């Protein structure tokens, strides 16, 4: 009866959460695959003997930043997915709270990235108009 009292998940919500966890897991795997491709691209660029020296350093810097962002996204979402799985297993929706900080961090990082891209785009526009 003790377990019965804690049941806050309907069967429909449990199924929805289970599917959501699978899709987020798929997204996390895709993020790690992209990380691998970035590393591969960096190795190819660095091993190219005909490249100008500054190209390798620039790409290396950008590559590390991209990998850092992707890994951050993946770890934060994994935290959220684990809490969803725990909530489904224990049949208690409140256990999601444990992973909500990871979910929030994911959106905060996305917001910061969006703002940066937006600012860079505006600078690009201003520069293009100034050149014209």
């Amino acid at each position, binding site marked *: 009866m003790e377990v019965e009292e804690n049941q806050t998940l309907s069967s429909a919500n449990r199924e929805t959460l289970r599917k959501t966890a699978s899709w*987020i897991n*798929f*997204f996390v795997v895709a993020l790690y695959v992209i990380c691998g491709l970035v590393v591969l691209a960096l190795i190819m660029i660095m091993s190219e003997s005909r490249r100008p020296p500054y190209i390798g350093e620039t790409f290396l810097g950008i590559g590390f930043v991209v990998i850092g962002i992707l890994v951050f996204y993946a770890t934060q979402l994994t935290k959220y997915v684990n809490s969803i799985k725990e909530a489904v297993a224990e049949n208690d*929706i*409140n256990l*999601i709270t444990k992973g909500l900080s990871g979910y929030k961090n994911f959106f905060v990082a*996305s*917001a910061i990235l969006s703002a940066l891209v*937006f600012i860079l*785009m505006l600078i690009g526009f201003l520069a293009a108009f100034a050149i014209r």
Partner: protein
Amino acid sequence: MEDFETLDEHLKTGSISESLKKGFKGIAPWARFVAIANIIFQIISFLVSFMDPDAGVGANFIGAGVNIALNVVLLQLANEMKSFGNSGSEKDLTTLLKKQLSYWIFTGALIIIGVVFFLLAIVAFSMSSGSLF
């Protein structure tokens, strides 16, 4: 006084906790910001593609359309998070979870399409340079 606290604690079990409501409510503004910023970004990118005749207006139109649709779903998700944060009702929670699933299915589908296009691009590039097969 102690009896009342025990009673309150007992009422909390089997229901949606305050921290869950607060957690989703705290995510809502960030998700909304991401969605609105991306929608504006896609609209501007599409308009810019008109200025450059070589940019491929058709492809940009499809790309922008799909991204805007994804971010509209994210915007709806943010609204559902806020609604659930305010009410804490089971009905709002169900709507939130369904919208969240829609968003992640949409994102996953886009990833699958992206992977297919990426592989096709590699095959096309390799065939044109004669290094494949």
